[in-house]
Structure formats: structure tokens, C-alpha cells
């Protein structure tokens, strides 16, 4: 598996070259959200709004009304928390083509509670007209742009920055999960950075005889890929969701909702940030502390199966990941 850096920074400039309707809004975090190169390459399409997020979101709505597609970049917390009323009334109600690009999902930042977007999916999912997307690797980060741009309405993107693994070879598709592994014991759904951790864990679990279907979710809303229910229906022990978000209102809730509506009476274990604010620290520390690393997932699988598997950190560290096609048995499904 290859780690890549500044994926969005480089890709956005390439992607926007032939799209004059695309403008970028920034709230004094231009370098931190990887749009510095865009600002330098297309200064006439770059709008600095300083630390006026509420004003910036409303202005994005105004510009979208006149035919532009504002791509609003800043840390997610300053959008869905600080400017939620503006997102709702200036952008979502009028169903405008604004792309809200929120950085620092969950515990991906040492910035602590003020910077960590731990409940953004729950909140944005509740906003009518909003499409909610999440990226988990370099290919997601690159190909989410086309997917978002094709939506005739507002889109919230949970974005990754800095050093990102390339896990997938195929482009992200709206409303479709990436089907990474097929198995019959349990269905595991992950999104964002938990997918890489899960891929480590599932390698080892598979070797110990635990047969897992692994789905990587990129579209939180609308959440309707039939693969989810089809695979859950055949899971022997149940379902695990594993997310870089609180266990309230995010991936775990999405899965619980569709399972309940379909009458699928399987056990569901929701792993994520356990309904708490986090604090500042390194990513490995936070992932261990809040139960978002591969070992935490293994412990969750043990709980669901009701047996100890004797897997430790050394087993997980030894795993070497290769990029996957991510569309397992697409024809058959």
C-alpha cells in the first residue's frame, strides 16, 4: 500500500482546469485545507472569506444561485457547527449546488475537541436535500469531486488531507459501497480512516478462520445500496459498524435504520467514538484510546463471536495491504 501526500491539493487544480463554474471559498485556512495551489493557479476563481464562516456559507448560496459551484473549504467543525443555520437556510433549503468540504473528521487532528468533527455525519444527514459523502483513501479523495459535482443540490464531503493511503483502484460511486471482502460469519461496515484499520484486522481474522464481508461506505446519504441488506441477511453472527464518528447518528445508525426497516433481526455492534468528546493527541494514541484501531475492531469481533481469538498488535502490524478493486462480485450482486 502506498501513502500519498497533498492528494486534494494537486488533484483539485487538475480537475477544475476545464470547469470555469467551479470557485473555491476559503476561511483563512487555505493551506490547511490544501487549496493554496488552486488559489495560486486560478486567483480569479478563489474567494477569501477570512474567519466569517456564517457569512461565507450564505455567500456561497448566493453565488450558486447565479450559476457558479462554490466549493467551500475549511475545518468541518466550523461549518456544520458554527454555520449550521446558514447551511440550512442559505444553501440546503434552496437546494443549491454548494459543495461543503469539511476537513479533520473525527480524531484525525491533534487539535482536540474544538477541531474534531465527531458528530458531523449525524447532523448533516438530518439536513433535508443534503447529500453526505465520506472519503477513506486517495482514490476516494480524487474521485469524490466528479461525484459531488454531478449532484443537483448541496453536498457535504468529509475530506482527508495530508498523508493518505491509496487503498482502491476504482472511482467512488454515489450510493454504492465498496465491497472489499466476502464472507459468511459477519458483515463489517467501515467508512473513512477506519477502513484501512479494518483491512488490517480482516486479513488476520480471515487467517484465523473468521469469514467476513467488508463494505466501505462513501455515501452516508442517501444510504441505500442493496448490497448492505443483501449481505447482512446472510451474516451468521451479525453486523459490526466501525466509524471515526460518535456512535450516535452516523454509520451505525444508518445501518440500524435500514436493518430495522427491513425487519432483519441480527445483532448489531456499533464501534466508534462512544458518545463522548475527545481530546488532543497523536492519531495512533487517539485511535487506541477511543477504540478506532485494528486491535479494537478485533476485540469487537471477539465480542460478537463470543470467543477469544488470541490476536495481538504484532499480528496486525505484520499485515501488508495492497490496493483493491473494491467492487467484489459486482455482477453477482
Amino acid at each position: 500500500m502506498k501513502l500519498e501526500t497533498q492528494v486534494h491539493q494537486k488533484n483539485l487544480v487538475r480537475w477544475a482546469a476545464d470547469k470555469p463554474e467551479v470557485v473555491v471559498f476559503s476561511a483563512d485556512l487555505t493551506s490547511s485545507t490544501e487549496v493554496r495551489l488552486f488559489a495560486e493557479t486560478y486567483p480569479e476563481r478563489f474567494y477569501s472569506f477570512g474567519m466569517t464562516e456564517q457569512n461565507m456559507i450564505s455567500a456561497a448560496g448566493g453565488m450558486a444561485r447565479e450559476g457558479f459551484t462554490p466549493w467551500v473549504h475549511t475545518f468541518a467543525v466550523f461549518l456544520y457547527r458554527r454555520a449550521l443555520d446558514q447551511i440550512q437556510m442559505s444553501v440546503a433549503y434552496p437546494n443549491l449546488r454548494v459543495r461543503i468540504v469539511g476537513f479533520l473528521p473525527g480524531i484525525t487532528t491533534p487539535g482536540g475537541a474544538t477541531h474534531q468533527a465527531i458528530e458531523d455525519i449525524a447532523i448533516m444527514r438530518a439536513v433535508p436535500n443534503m447529500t453526505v459523502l465520506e472519503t477513506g483513501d486517495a482514490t476516494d479523495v480524487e474521485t469524490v469531486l466528479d461525484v459531488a459535482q454531478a449532484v443537483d443540490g448541496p453536498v457535504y464531503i468529509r475530506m482527508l488531507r495530508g498523508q493518505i493511503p491509496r487503498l482502491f483502484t476504482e472511482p467512488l460511486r454515489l450510493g454504492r459501497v465498496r465491497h472489499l471482502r466476502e464472507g459468511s460469519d459477519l458483515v463489517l461496515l467501515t467508512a473513512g480512516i477506519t477502513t484501512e484499520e479494518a483491512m488490517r484486522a480482516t486479513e488476520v481474522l480471515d487467517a484465523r478462520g473468521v469469514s467476513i464481508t467488508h463494505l466501505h461506505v462513501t455515501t452516508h446519504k442517501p444510504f441505500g445500496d442493496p448490497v448492505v441488506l443483501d449481505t447482512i441477511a446472510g451474516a451468521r453472527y451479525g453486523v459490526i459498524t466501525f466509524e471515526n464518528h460518535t456512535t450516535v447518528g452516523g454509520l451505525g445508525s444508518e445501518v440500524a435504520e435500514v436493518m430495522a426497516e427491513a425487519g432483519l433481526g441480527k445483532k448489531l455492534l456499533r464501534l466508534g467514538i462512544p458518545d463522548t468528546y475527545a481530546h488532543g493527541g497523536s492519531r495512533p494514541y487517539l485511535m487506541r484510546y477511543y477504540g478506532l484501531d485494528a486491535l479494537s475492531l478485533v476485540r469487537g469481533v471477539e465480542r460478537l463471536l463470543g470467543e477469544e481469538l488470541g490476536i495481538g498488535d504484532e499480528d496486525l502490524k505484520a499485515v501488508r495491504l495492497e490496493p483493491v478493486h473494491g467492487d467484489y462480485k459486482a455482477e453477482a450482486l
Partner: protein
Amino acid sequence: MSWEREAKRVADGIRRRVTAFTLKNGGGYLSQACSSAEILATLYTKVMNLGPSVAPPVPPPFSGVPGRDPNYTTGAGYNGPKEPHLDRFFISPVHYALVLYAALVETGRMAEEGLAMFNQDGSRVEMIGAEHSPGHELMAGSLGQALSQVIGIALARREHGETGRNFVFMSDGEFMIGQTWEAIETLAFYRLDTVVVYIDANGQSADGKIDEVMRIEPLKDRLEAFGAAAVEVNGHDVRALEAAARTPHDGKALFVIARTNPYCGVEVLADRAPKFHYIRFTRPEEREALERFYLEKWGKRDEA
């Protein structure tokens, strides 16, 4: 008829219609009509360069919100077509909706039957205007958001080479709001001199006198310090309101602070000081007094 006489006729018609509705409904945003009648009348009859309405004279019923109604349109058509050289009008304090509807009727942009739909279930002629309401183009009921939305529109229009101006009607209470000041510094940063804001400075907000609710004055000094051009006028003087729009403001947004009186033209309301935000009748005598005032000033009321 001179434009001044026409503007005064429109202003009088606004007050008459809103007073009639307040009597009919047992309450209403009447003081807003009293304070802003000349502002809206002057904007519509003289200041703004708008084309004739392109919307149905009688507004169609509510047909769904954006994203749900495939044929959705805003109420902007009542302010004329969107053309590069034409001005646009945006109302921010949309609890003034009835005042705006009355202005549209008085200026021939909406049929009287449209006004009869006011506050009726299933109608888009709503009490607090939404963007589908006649004369409205933005969702502005969460106060303080319209000016920022107009920034986006003005930036886009400049990028498209459009020359029309963007008029915004605001209330002074909105200058309590942080987002309003974010918008003003942004107008200065982008030198958006196509934006002209008329403020109904009636000194009133929901709780009563603004002075006793929050400190917003000295408004002109504050606006200028934030990089805007500002002028202060008597908001019931149509000539002064018209001349204000011609204040030089090269490279700056222009704010016209129209100092107004919340019971101008319906003086029987004066006793209600300091509470004018929403006129209710708590005693039968209050209603009778307004009925009497109406009869003396405008004659018998049509019971539509």
C-alpha cells in the same frame, strides 16, 4: 403625476392595506408598514431600475419546496426579469412580508386577489415571507443571512459583467447580529459598490426599543468604520430617500440609514410605546380605536 406624489400615494396605500389586514386578522406587523412605507414606495417607484413583473398576477398556491417541486420558482419574478443591466431587490426582514405584498399591489406588480391569500393555509403569500413568496428571492427569515447571500449574488454578477445594482432592504435590529458585520467587512474587502442597503431604522425590535435591548448605535459611524459608505436621512421624506441613492460611493457598498417612526401615518398606535413589534388587540377599545382611525383616514373598509 410627479414621482413624489406617486410614491406618497403608494406609501399611503401600503399603510391602508396593512391596517385593514391588522383589523381583519386581529393583529399584524403594522408598525413595520408605518415605518417603512416611504422606503419601499420610493425604491419601487423611483430608485430601482426594475422591469415589469414576469410572475402571475395572482400567485399560484404553494406547490412544494426546492428539491421537491420540479417546477419550483422563487417570488423574484414580481420584481421583474433578471437582466444584466437591471437592478435586483432583496428583502431581509421578511416579517415585513405583508408590507412588501402591499407595495407590490400598489405598484401593479401583484393583483389584489393575491393579497387576499395572505396567511391562508396552502398559500405562498405567507406571513413570514419565504423565497417562494411574492417579491421575495431569498430565505431570510433567520435574520442576518440575506446580506451575505447578496454578496454571493453581487460577486457572481460582477464576474458575469452585469451592471445592475443589488438593493437590500434591512431592519436596524439586524445590526445586532454578528453575521451582518461579517458581511459588511466582506463588502468592503471585495469593494462591492453594486450593493445598496436601505435600513428601516425604526429603533424597534421584538422586545421593544432597541436601545434597551442591545447597543447598535452610532450606526453611521460603525458602518463607515467597517469600510462602507453611509448616509442618514428622514425615512418618511421620499425626496431625501431618493437623493440618498445618489450618494457617491465608488468602491464601497452604500447604506442608507432611514430614520423612521414606528407609528407614522397611523398615529393612534403612539400610545403603545415602547412595544410596536407585533400589534395585538388586548382590549376591545384598542380595536375600536384603530377601526375609528381607519374610517376617519381612509373611509369604509372593504371586507374582503
